[in-house]
């Protein structure tokens, strides 16, 4: 016990002269990542983790950060908010990380944010879209757009680009993300003169959606907005087509996944959904990332991979500019992020610590995601 304590002290001492924080040794910079590796949202967590692994390898391969190699410590939160809190406490208190990346789902991020705030450790959530999150304090940032922007953008797209007058909304009542998007879609769509003719609900664990879809069919909407995750959206689309619904689907970034194309086939066409990037975007940084990700994991990066990758790079960039591992310095640098060239788009952190960035609308056509238009914040 004594020896172990002494070793710890020694390591802490070295850390102070090296990369700033006690806990790591002289040449490593510790970054914490909490993510769902098990439980219901494990598939989302895995995308984020894969992408952040790539980002870390890139930085380390290019000489590291502040002269140190980044060491990523990944903790599982079982997709549960209360476990997210424990994971973040462990990262901050035991591992003494410099900054924190995570989580995918808003409920886990919101639960863990106060811990980061209290300990003055900057936290960057790559993909939690609930507006509530960044109200938790000035150390809490996000690098994705928020529910109101996305919901409103799709509502405007429906009424302006698709000239739809009526829409049906099919919400996942169990997901905060889905409820949020639905709310802002409905609000904006009605403001632009549209009418919501059907408002149905399901729960993430469901597989049979035909009863609700039959009700939607009876209401004869011009478009159907399904703000859910691809795990259910594919089934919804298939069953809708079987019931003879031919209307276009609208969706949010939850639709973006190889699964949608592979399992959805013709059923998911036409579908328009808002996303963070288009895999067809010719910009070299996009193609380089897509290439790397496909090579390493065998699939096209989905929305959560892209946001994870951008989130990690925004954080690393801020640390570089701060030229320090001090929490407050990184916080200030993060807040000053302007026009960061991410894979998704140029990212600027606004006064509310949310990312102000472009959104793209993609169309599923011929088994591919095709770029339709981009929407400025």
């Amino acid at each position, binding site marked *: 016990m004594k020896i172990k304590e002494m070793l710890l002290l020694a390591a802490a001492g070295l850390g102070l002269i090296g990369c700033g924080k006690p806990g790591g040794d002289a040449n490593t910079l510790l970054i914490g990542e909490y993510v769902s590796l098990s439980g219901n949202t494990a*598939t989302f967590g895995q995308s984020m983790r894969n992408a952040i692994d790539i980002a870390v390898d890139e930085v380390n391969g290019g000489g590291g950060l502040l002269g140190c190699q980044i060491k990523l410590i990944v903790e599982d939160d079982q997709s549960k908010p209360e476990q997210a809190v424990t994971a973040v406490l462990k990262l901050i208190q035991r591992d003494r990380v410099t900054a924190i990346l995570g989580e995918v789902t808003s409920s886990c991020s919101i639960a863990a944010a106060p811990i980061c705030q209290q300990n003055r450790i900057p936290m960057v959530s790559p993909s939690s879209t609930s507006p509530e999150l960044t109200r938790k304090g000035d150390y809490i940032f996000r690098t994705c757009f928020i529910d109101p922007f996305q919901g409103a953008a799709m509502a405007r797209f429906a009424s302006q680009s698709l000239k739809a007058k009526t829409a049906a909304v099919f919400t996942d009542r169990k997901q905060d993300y889905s409820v949020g998007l639905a709310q802002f879609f409905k609000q904006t769509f009605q403001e632009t003169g549209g009418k919501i003719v059907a408002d149905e609900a399901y729960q993430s664990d469901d597989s049979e959606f035909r*009863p609700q879809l039959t009700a939607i069919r009876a209401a004869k909407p011009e478009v159907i907005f399904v703000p859910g995750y691809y795990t259910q959206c594919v089934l919804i689309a298939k069953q809708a087509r079987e019931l003879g619904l031919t209307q276009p689907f609208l969706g949010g970034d939850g639709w973006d996944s190889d699964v949608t194309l592979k399992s959805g086939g013709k059923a998911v066409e036409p579908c328009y959904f808002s996303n963070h990037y288009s895999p067809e975007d010719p910009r070299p940084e996009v193609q380089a990332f897509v290439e790397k990700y496909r090579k390493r994991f065998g699939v096209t990066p989905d929305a959560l991979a892209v946001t994870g990758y951008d989130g990690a790079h925004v954080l690393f960039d801020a640390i570089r500019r701060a030229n320090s591992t001090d929490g407050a310095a990184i916080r200030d640098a993060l807040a000053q992020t302007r026009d960061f060239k991410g894979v998704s788009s140029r990212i600027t952190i606004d006064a509310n610590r949310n990312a102000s960035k472009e959104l793209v609308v993609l169309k599923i056509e011929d088994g591919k995601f095709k770029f339709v238009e981009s929407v400025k914040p």
Partner: protein
Amino acid sequence: MESFLQQILQGLKLGGIYALIALGYTMVYGVLRLINFAHGDVFMLGAMLSIYFARWTGFGNQPSWLGLGATLLFAMAVCGAIGGVIERVAYRPLRNAPRLSLLIAAIGVSLLIENVGQLRQVFGPTPQPFPALIQTKTVAQWGSLTVSNVEILVLLVALGLMAGLHVFVHHTRFGLAMRAVAHDHQTAGLMGIPAGKVIFGTFVLGSALAGAAGVLWGLSYPVINPMTGFVPGIKAFVAAVLGGVGSIPGALLGGFLIGEAESLTAFYLSSTYKDAIAFVILILVLLARPTGLLGRKEVEKV
């Protein structure tokens, strides 16, 4: 009217699958008084392993009846074997332990299957597409009412397997032994029936049905991940209890009732409260008939 029939049809299909899973629950419950929590996960394995089988054999690329039949048999065989292994390794040593300990072992096995399945090296957490073993086609249409071949097929296979099970249970020696063990475990033993073997056989049989249900599920809802088994598992369990747990016709009835209840409440009452309403119906039925619709009334001996 067409919408109503559409809902009834959906309910039948969903109910058929629930009934197949519920049969496994109820048979195991009959001989062992155990809620086999891992049953839903065996069902998931049936669907998941079929994906790999279809990929490996190439049946997934070309819809054919042969491919469907082979996959169905494969799923039943593999799940039967898995069920047997689970019984031998995790449940048999607990034969004389308190019932709830057996239940916890079952929950442990269920968690183990889910968590192992989520590992990158196994299935991974990402949902996988279930191959189109047969081409989905609309075979009948009246107004807005559509009937697809998958729906008919699922219903026919489910009913066929149930009929087969009925014959098996009532017209074979093993079925007789099964019923004897279910009726009275100890007396059956005294009559020279090898209870251990019967219980093992029941597990294999129930798991094989779950495997078949997995394939049917995959055909109807072609996106499978390692957690897929949990919710259908719980619903089938509810179906088994509703029908009267331990009763084979009860499982059938319960399965179809839950399928219909879900389908009709979502359409006519409220999709927001769909699951809640299904549970309300269940509770009301149980309050009126405390041992399920076709359950044996428990005789209390003093």
